[in-house]
């Protein structure tokens, strides 16, 4: 093997690639051109879910291809899509979160607490915990525990109860944030004023300044302290 190269197995096929690359860059170095399985390339979008085993080990590992450095003798495959259950709903027409949740996602009661989901989350979330929080009606906790989810689908791929945890979490977060939190008074007041045209004159005035006056005003701005 050439120096600095290590073996990896893409869907079972052996390639030698430079050490230090991410899985995604290694795939491109080999000669793959992505259509699926590649999105933001920054760890945000969940397009490049990958599962792998190291030669000789029983343990199944997960990764985002764009965020994970290759190690020798990885046997990997990407899972660019996984079928998901998603309920359709209108948040404006709902007022009881517990009732809506059980009606739209009755399978939530099939969670047996096996914890398989918590072993495959590339964000190191524990869907088992936020699903449990949702079952107990602890909406804020469910929202917080699920917030970092990138909806990659890996938890759904392993769930023995056949849940789609991330769509359940998204619904809980949306409902809770819309109906369950205190209203931001400053925003409501500001928008009442905006709708009443209270700032129109001031915007018009600054937009009508000559270039020279605008520059002068710009250099004379006062800054709120850091």
């Amino acid at each position, binding site marked *: 093997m050439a120096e600095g190269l290590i073996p990896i197995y893409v869907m079972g096929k052996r390639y030698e690639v430079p050490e*230090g*690359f*991410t899985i995604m860059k290694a795939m*491109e*170095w*080999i*000669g793959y*051109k*992505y*259509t*699926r399985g590649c*999105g*933001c390339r*920054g760890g*945000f*979008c969940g*397009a490049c879910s990958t599962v792998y085993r190291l030669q000789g080990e029983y343990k199944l590992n997960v990764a985002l291809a764009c965020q994970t*450095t290759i190690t020798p003798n990885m046997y990997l495959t990407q899972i660019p899509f996984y079928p998901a259950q*998603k309920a*359709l*709903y209108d948040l404006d027409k709902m007022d009881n979160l517990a009732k809506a949740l059980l009606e739209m996602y009755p399978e939530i009661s099939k969670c047996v607490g096996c914890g398989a989901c918590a072993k495959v989350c590339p964000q*190191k979330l524990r869907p088992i915990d936020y699903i449990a929080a949702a079952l107990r009606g602890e909406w804020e906790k469910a929202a917080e525990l699920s*917030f*970092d989810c*990138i*909806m990659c689908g890996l938890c759904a791929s392993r769930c023995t109860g056949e849940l789609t945890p991330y769509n359940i979490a*998204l*619904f809980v*977060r*949306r*409902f*809770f*944030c*819309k109906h369950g*939190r*205190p*209203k*931001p*008074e*400053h*925003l409501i007041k*500001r*928008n009442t004023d*905006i709708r009443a045209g209270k*700032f*129109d004159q001031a*915007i018009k*005035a*600054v*937009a009508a300044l000559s270039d020279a006056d*605008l*520059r002068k*005003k*710009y*250099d004379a*701005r*006062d*800054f*709120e302290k*850091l």
Partner: protein
Amino acid sequence: MSGYPQSMQESLKKLEQTRSFRLTQDIPRMNFETREKLLKACHPDFRPDSIEEVRVGPNKGQKLSIKLVDLLEAKSRIDPARVDLSRIDYDVDVLVVGGGGGGVSAALTAQENGAKVLLATKLRMGDSNTIMAEGGIAAATQGNDSPDRHYLDTIGGGRFQNKRDLVSVLVHDAPLIVEWLKDLGCMFDTHKNGDLVVSFAGGHTRRRVHSCKDLSGLEFMRVVRDELYNRQIPVLEFSPAVELLLDDQGKCAGAILFNMETEEHIIVKAKAVILATGGIGRLHPSDFPTTNHYGATADGLIIAYRAGAHLLHMDAIQFHPTGAMWPEQMLGQLITEACRGNGAQLVNKNGERFINELETRDTVSSGILREVRDRGNGIKTPTGGEGIWLDTPLINIRGDAGKLDRMFAGIVHRFGEYGIDVRKEPILIFPTQHYQNGGVEIDPEGRTSVPGLFAAGECSGGVQGRNRLGGNSLLDIFVFGRRSGKSVVEYINKAKVGKPTLQHVVDYHKQLDAAGIKTNKTSPLLLPDYIRDEVKERRYN
């Protein structure tokens, strides 16, 4: 234990030694004139190899980003003579092209106003720069702030080149957009009483960036996408638009999509089209790494330009001051400006600050380039790169011990994977391509110079001038997404749109010939080309 190699330890020590001094050190902001001088000396836009004159089309004779000109002076991917435009696959009121925040908000709004909408996107729904935006959305929602103040900051940030009517509606609509997102169920950072948390971003005189931890764009994207699905708006994924269709009066009449998996073309007849195709980052302007998603290849600009739309400020590219420089696996990835907005400082190899960290992005990036390239004060990496420290532990020192974990969990997690604890050690950064300041010129209703063609978000131009402020992009996409979605319906209710044709493509090819441009290149590019030459050679084709 340090997450950095031995060769960088000496500089790290200096950084720690100067920290208490730096905590109280005040570096005043530059005035506009000093800033202009710095930009002309150090900003990549002013490098002669960054821009060149385009020889055809509506901006003929103007200098634009070389990487864009290369694609504007290429042929269409399709041969107009071989396309059967009588085989219509979809007949809709409004075609929205692009599945990021701009496209989705436009589609939602057009549908609310009664239009039959189809949304087509190149990758998956939501694959966009929106989903990667970390910092948040700017709006004057606080008592000490006002939209006219936001206006002044924005237009000065844009170096006074912004279209004024666009800035006016941007700052006016901003608080309304925050409310719209909140009412859709976005999980904004809030105080206990429900008030929204706001942070600083460079160039803003007030704290006005509203965040959802450091995953603001992800949160907005998954919520608006969910709403799009709830409203059952039809979506075509992996189907980018490769050419627009115009009627015999030059009005936009639909588009040709390309199914990237079957390689068939799809003909969409529409009374109007909204382009929300994003930016240019994956063309790597000035050969910088980029923070952008895989599909940011300026497709919308190319097809709009062939259809006769005017481009604005396409020689002005934004380089974000803080792209990751180490570890190598993270090269070019975004470190949110909110770090600086919450007290992190930029520090050179001697432990010294060299610029006010809350200057505008063009200024801070130029300051970093000067510090590293002209003054030799960069920190060298073992692989030949150079960067500047972003002193993240200051965020906890100035705030509280839990602030980084609370507000920047994503950064803590991503660097933690490489053994760097950003609560204890700084991040090595260097400017990275981030944003296309210009685009297809629009008016306050999202209209372009082609009747029936609208644009919103990063692919549109004018509102940001020559440099965008942090927090103004998540704002821009929703303000002009919503506005174009509304005005498109007013347009289609009146417009009589004729039979779709590709005559403009035939004419554009003639213009290329007339300008003496001989090329085998085709555009739009659709995906960047990261295949090695050695692999290509062995393909023998």
